[in-house]
């Protein structure tokens, strides 16, 4: 029944996509009724462009801009990321719940997260919680499968299977304003309050700074429906509160020689309850987490000539977490884990374009990561990573050929106990993009990339389960895609279609395996992933003052456990990977009130490696509606927004027994000077 309902949901996505195509066809025939004089009338500019997509890139790249996030009423960066083709966001529910991004079935550890160009690292967990970043300051969120198209980058950003890049913006860039002041207040269901301020100031012709402060609190006590066999009960999520704040300062400096220096200092602090999975017949939940994170990062970019450009980056990161659980089963009735991580990071890159069409770049990174904790058998590990990436790209007439070779050297050190082996790898990547008809924006792209993820500190050193003998987990990615951008008829401002088919292979997977009484992290298992990602975006002028932007995404993914033929899980879909997923979004801009509506569709998944009916987690459709209006006053502008998330009040889980909130409301007031 469920399966059917979901398929039906799918049908509508297909219809939606067809509809977009249909429109364009209709307008083609409708050209007569379009008189050129309309062009002179006041027209609405559709700022709700979903993305400035790079269709000529040899790797699948998708961007969501802040205006799209706003107009569609997206609730967080995780909410935005899950709408990108091929992305699976693991969301443990609530504002404070862990949210990680994985791309094309590869596991979150294979996705690098960049914040203003510099990688965010967490050597202990190996994966990044993007719930920790606030969408307010983020101007664009870009996912690149493989690697980013830009050749002048840190070596690190070439070393992952996917890159999720968060970019903030200098608010005064491209304006002649001397300053900008912005105050924003968000409030919503379950006690959510999120005030924020931004002050950007020009000091002199070449220097700008900005200061941001942002605070979020929520009690997180949302109701949910618990289905236990035939028993259905209304429950409430407890110990799901969160209180966090951060402050960020940016200094943007332009020098006379055209070079730029951007420096960022950031501090984040939070306390939250970890509600854990819902346990039948037992409401006890006492786990809490405290987080403190400070970092300073700087980036210098300079062009020496037409042929030479360089970039240097540096970062220092300090993060501290305290986890506490209260239960009589622990000695002293409490378990307290305190972890301290530090990172020192330097990167330098140079780009050389000796002749027209040929670009060569070389990036070198060095990083030192340390971990200290309060465990009795704390090994105090530290890791030195040396990365070097050599890139070459040749663009000639209708094709572009790129190759990358990344060398990784990881030196592992411990103050006591077993020392893991050092790791040395060479990882190649090749890609080809071609445009067979230069008059037409139709591109074909092919990519092969080899990557790996090194075991995290937890994988190697965590109490009892850690295994210092772990090897990296390997991934191989193949992609073939077509992109097409067109502005075929007047009513269609733009239309873009991308379709990619891929095959990924993961082996030597790092997993926890049981013995009779203890578990240990091991390299075990292989997963084969085949999939298709399709996206369609178009912008249409429905009427002279009404702009419409429509987008649709569909992803098909078969991620099969190929580990052992005799196993009961052989060729079963790996956990939490829907076969079908996608979304449809529509934005209507008009002089009265802007409307954003979207639906995210996720198919059936399994919560365990064995695909049995007991392990089935049903698919869901989640609808979001957002209304917004900006009033331009003399000295300032005021923006009002109201959102309803999960409009149909659907009860669903992303992770089984971590129920997601039902229908929730949010209001935003923003004043900008």
């Amino acid at each position, binding site marked *: 029944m469920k399966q059917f309902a979901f398929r039906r949901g799918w049908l509508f996505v297909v219809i939606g996509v067809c*509809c977009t195509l249909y429109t364009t066809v209709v307008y083609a025939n409708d050209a007569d009724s379009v008189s050129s004089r309309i062009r002179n009338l006041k027209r609405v500019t559709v700022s709700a462009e979903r993305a400035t997509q790079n269709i000529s890139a040899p790797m699948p790249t998708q961007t969501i801009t802040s205006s799209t996030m706003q107009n569609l009423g997206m609730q967080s960066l995780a909410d935005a990321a899950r709408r990108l083709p091929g992305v699976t966001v693991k969301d443990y529910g609530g504002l404070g719940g862990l949210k990680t991004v994985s791309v094309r079935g590869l596991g979150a550890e294979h996705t690098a997260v960049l914040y203003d160009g510099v990688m965010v690292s967490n050597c202990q967990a190996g994966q990044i919680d993007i719930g920790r970043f606030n969408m307010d300051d983020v101007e664009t969120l870009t996912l690149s499968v493989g690697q980013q198209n830009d050749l002048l980058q840190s070596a690190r950003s070439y070393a992952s299977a996917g890159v999720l890049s968060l970019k903030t913006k200098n608010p005064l860039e491209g304006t002649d304003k001397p300053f900008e002041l912005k105050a924003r207040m968000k409030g919503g269901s379950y006690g959510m309050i999120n005030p924020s301020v931004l002050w950007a100031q020009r000091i002199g012709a070449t220097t700008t700074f900005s200061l941001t402060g942002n605070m979020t609190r929520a009690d997180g006590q949302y109701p949910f429906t618990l289905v236990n066999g035939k028993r259905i009960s209304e429950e409430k999520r407890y110990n799901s509160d969160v209180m966090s704040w951060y402050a960020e300062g940016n200094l943007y400096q332009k020098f006379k020689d055209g070079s730029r220096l951007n420096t960022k200092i950031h501090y984040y602090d939070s306390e939250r309850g970890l509600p854990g999975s819902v346990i039948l017949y037992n409401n006890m939940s006492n786990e809490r987490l405290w987080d403190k994170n400070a970092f300073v990062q700087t980036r210098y970019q300079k062009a020496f000539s037409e042929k030479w450009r360089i970039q240097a980056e540096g970062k220092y990161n300090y993060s501290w977490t305290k986890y506490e659980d209260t239960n009589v089963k622990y000695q002293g009735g409490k378990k307290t884990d305190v972890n301290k991580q530090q990172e020192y990071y330097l990167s330098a890159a140079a780009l050389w374009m000796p002749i027209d069409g040929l670009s060569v770049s070389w990036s070198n990174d060095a990083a030192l990561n340390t971990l200290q904790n309060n465990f009795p058998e704390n090994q105090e590990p530290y890791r030195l990573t040396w990365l070097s990436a050599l890139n070459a790209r040749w663009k000639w007439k209708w094709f572009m050929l790129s190759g990358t070779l990344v060398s990784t050297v990881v030196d592992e050190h411990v103050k006591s106990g077993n020392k893991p082996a050092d790791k040395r790898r060479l990882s190649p990547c090749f890609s080809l993009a071609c445009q067979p008809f230069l008059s037409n924006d139709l591109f074909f792209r092919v990519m092969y990339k080899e990557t790996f993820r090194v075991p995290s500190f937890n994988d190697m050193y965590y109490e009892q389960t850690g295994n210092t003998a772990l090897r990296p987990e390997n991934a191989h990615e193949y992609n073939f895609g077509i992109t097409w951008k067109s502005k075929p008829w007047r009513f269609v401002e733009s239309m873009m279609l991308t379709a990619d088919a891929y095959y990924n292979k993961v082996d030597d997977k790092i997993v926890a395996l049981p013995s*009779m009484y203890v578990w240990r992290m091991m390299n075990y298992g292989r997963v084969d992933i085949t999939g298709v990602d399709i996206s369609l975006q178009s912008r249409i002028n429905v009427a002279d003052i009404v702009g419409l932007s429509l987008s649709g995404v569909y992803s098909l993914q078969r991620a099969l456990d190929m580990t052992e033929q005799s196993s009961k899980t052989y060729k079963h879909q790996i956990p939490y990977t829907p076969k079908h997923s996608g979304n449809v979004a529509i934005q209507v801009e008009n002089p009265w009130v802007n409307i954003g509506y979207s639906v995210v569709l996720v198919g059936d998944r399994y919560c365990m490696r064995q695909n*049995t009916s007991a392990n089935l987690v049903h698919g869901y459709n989640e609808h979001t509606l957002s209304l917004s209006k900006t009033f331009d006053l003399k000295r300032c502008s005021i923006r009002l927004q109201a959102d309803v998330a999960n409009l149909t009040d659907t009860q669903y889980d992303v992770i089984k027994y971590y129920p997601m909130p039902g229908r929730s409301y949010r209001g935003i007031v923003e004043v900008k000077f």
Partner: protein
Amino acid sequence: MKRKNLFLLMLCMVFGLVFTSCDENNDGDNGGGGNVIENIDPSDRVFILNEGNYNSNNSGIDMYSPCGGADGTSLFVKNVYMNQNGEGLGDTGQDLISHDGNLYASITGSSLLVKMDNAAKKLATISFDASEGQPRYLAAKNGKIYVTLYGGYVAKIDAGSFQKEAMVQVGSNPEGIVECNGKLYVCNSGWGYDNTMSVIDIATFTVEKTVEVATNPNEIIAAGGKIFIQSYGGAYPDYDYQVQMYDPASGSLERLTAATKLAAYGDVVYIVYSDTDWTTYTTTNVFSTYNIKTRELKTENYLKDMPAQLSSNGIYMIDIDPSNGDFYVSVSDYVSDGTVYRFESDGDLIDAMLSGGMNPTKTVFTN
């Protein structure tokens, strides 16, 4: 312009329809119903507890009948608890016992003790609060149920009224418990740090003495008037899984051999030692028997014709039917539903059943 309107209309329809495509959830049952059980003679019902996975609410009970099927063949019914009660058993089923014709299950994650009739129909439950701690293992004697609680207690519960009557403090994180000649013997694991066994006098319900045993004692059984304690045998990482024999009469304690699981039938203790080599992730099982009368320890495989899965995976359960000596054995990989094997007392494999859940951990005989 007409076409434009048509398009808008279509658009409205599409988005309108998406709204209606919400999920309908009508999960059917996933196994046999109550009638199947009730048609089987109570003395022919064998219940198997599936522990499930930590924090996954997927523990359950399967039923097996050695000759309750058509023409006297065996019958296996999955998930009888869910089918009989229309609700799940809860999170992490730790132990299951039968006493005076009823079944009792301790569900650790759910912090719950469940009383069922001999067809797995729920009769009553008891919850334990944060200070008492979560329930672990069960023992029963003369109409009283005894349960170890992670707060460091053994609770006495009246089987009839299913009310808590008393609690006695033992060591920290008590695990296995067994009754023998008017005493209760309790393993105090301390979650790896304790190394004692508490001896409780049932009549006075007080701790009579505390015996030092190997580190991190876990499972405990009684046979031939002796107590057999399986323990981790050391602190991490120096585990030395072993079985010790305690003689209540003399107070002597003796290490017998390496062991990860124990069972007893008559005067013989059946021992299995599952050893995992982490460099290759292969597990080997060493089987041995200890004859209490002759004090003879023999390394011998008492299970013949072992399927490949059994010989190369850790043995998660070994229980013996007290009426005929049949072995019920399971293996577990924590990712898929378990398999339960039944061997005749002479070691011949008779049956292999695919469980209704993960980690089959305890077999209970109602005869």
